[in-house]
């Protein structure tokens, strides 16, 4: 039995569910907007089970899970329903960390991008170069870093999403603001963006051609991102698989850039990738590969299970 967990308006989840349906794979969708209607028992020593959508499934019969846990809906009028929703979400995400099933991905494994410089250290251990990085609250040190690299970008250092921006001369006048909070700066890396999705041991790469510093927000700058399928060099593909496995991620979105000299730099690994954006623009069959991975676990032929 495969469980899907998340919200029905979340495109990566709905694509995976549709792929499971198309493949005829037995599955149950746990809709986060309907948690108050479901039942869950779990914890060590208890007969764990989930009841939802007219079915009751023992937790030890679950062989694979694709979870995209988002913030559960709040402000239900009924306090009991609100409490059941919160309890279900908390216990279920606990169970994801300890279940014998293949979990894509375990919450603890997803933590690594909660600190980008932390994750950068792990990325480098897997053999990828990372951007030269400075976190500082000293404007003079940041100016020296800027002078040394010529071009520098800045972004959040935690997992809180931010738009990557280039440090410009105009920013100089407000650089003193870093005194209030150490801020992350990185050497600008020239080249072409390549987004790699690792699904188990398979890789799906898309090149992104865009003039924006952060292609995810190209539209805000009146720019456009062009996505196309990309053939990764075998050694980069192998390194990507090893990196995802090393982080305990069966599904990962890896942000790479290939420099003009052909060398590769890794910016970060997204443990809950919105792969649907890349799939819809390139036709890369990521959802189908994900369901194949989950279904292989169903048949007992899964790759090594993720340990946190």
């Amino acid at each position, binding site marked *: 039995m495969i469980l899907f967990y998340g919200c029905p308006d979340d495109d990566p989840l709905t694509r995976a569910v549709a792929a499971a349906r198309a493949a005829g794979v037995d599955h149950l969708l746990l809709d986060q907007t309907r948690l108050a209607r479901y039942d869950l028992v*779990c*914890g060590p020593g208890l007969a764990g089970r989930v009841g939802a959508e007219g079915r009751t499934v023992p937790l030890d019969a679950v062989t694979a899970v694709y979870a995209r846990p988002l913030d559960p809906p709040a402000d239900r009028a009924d306090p009991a329903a609100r409490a059941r929703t919160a309890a279900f979400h908390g216990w279920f995400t606990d169970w994801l960390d300890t279940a014998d099933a293949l979990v894509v991905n375990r919450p603890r494994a997803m933590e690594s991008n909660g600190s980008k410089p932390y*994750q950068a250290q792990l990325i480098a251990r897997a053999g990828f170069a990372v951007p030269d990085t400075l976190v500082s*609250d000293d404007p003079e040190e940041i100016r020296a870093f800027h002078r040394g690299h010529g071009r520098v970008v800045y972004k959040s250092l935690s997992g809180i999403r931010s738009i990557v921006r280039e440090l410009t001369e105009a920013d100089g006048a407000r650089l003193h603001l870093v*005194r209030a*909070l150490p801020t992350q700066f990185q050497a600008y890396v020239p080249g072409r963006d390549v987004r790699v999705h690792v699904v188990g041991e398979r890789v799906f790469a898309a090149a992104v051609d865009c003039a924006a510093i952060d292609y995810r927000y190209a539209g805000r700058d009146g720019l456009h991102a062009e996505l196309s399928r990309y053939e990764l060099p075998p050694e980069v593909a192998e390194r990507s698989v090893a990196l995802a496995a090393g982080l305990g991620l069966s599904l990962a979105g890896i942000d790479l850039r290939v420099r003009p000299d052909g060398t590769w730099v890794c910016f970060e690994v997204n443990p809950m990738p919105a792969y649907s954006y890349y799939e819809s623009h390139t036709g890369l069959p990521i959802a189908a590969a994900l369901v194949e991975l989950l279904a292989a676990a169903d048949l007992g032929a899964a790759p090594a299970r993720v340990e946190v």
Partner: protein
Amino acid sequence: MAVLAERGDIGAAGVAREVAARLGGERVLLLTPGMLARSRWSHRVGPDGRASTRIVLPDGRLLDSAQTGAVLHRLDRLPAVGLRRADAKDLAYARTELLALLASWLLGLGPRVLGPVSASGAARGSLSPTAALAHAARCGLPVARRGGATRVGLLDRPAPGERLVPHLDWPGGRGAPVPADLLPDPGAGPSERLLLCGERLVGALAGRYAEPSRRLGALLGSDLLELRFTRGVLAEVDACPPLAAAEQRSAVAEHLVALAEAA
């Protein structure tokens, strides 16, 4: 050497005193969240992933990662002292950023850190008590029943040494449509504490549970844990133990001195 702890952390202060007695007081820094938040930070991660950190403390002393022998990590927060006029959202952002910085600094110190190192930065991390027990069971430790159900009536009646705790005060008894926890009752019988500190186990159950305890430490990514047994089964795992016993504080101090000497 640095001990990162809250101001009122008596166990950490005791460890700092013991380390100071062994190495000299000038070699031990007891750093509170406020001190770290008021410090000046310079943290570098090079293209090869090597990290280096220089922290200038509020009193001007320098904590350089290249010269740091060992760190005991017991912090769950850093305050955003430079943003007093910011709104709640910006303050939350700043605190998250500071913990992310703390996490990267500690990871860069490698094996010189005693205590959990994770991207969350917090010593207690995000692991719930129930998940910790589930991991402990997988490591071969005897564990108490602990968990919950979305409706009271889905749980068995509590056995001796257990208690049922509904999340809301609601009429209907076992038919109440509210979630409930089934918890081990820590006051329900004889208890033992077992401290994992590096490879060493401290406590009466050390001989019996050494290997599964070490496995649990490896699984949870920490070489400092306290395992609390009630009525012969593990009822709680603490990733930031109070270090209430002198024997525990001595073990931690010894381990920190050994880390510093090996660095």
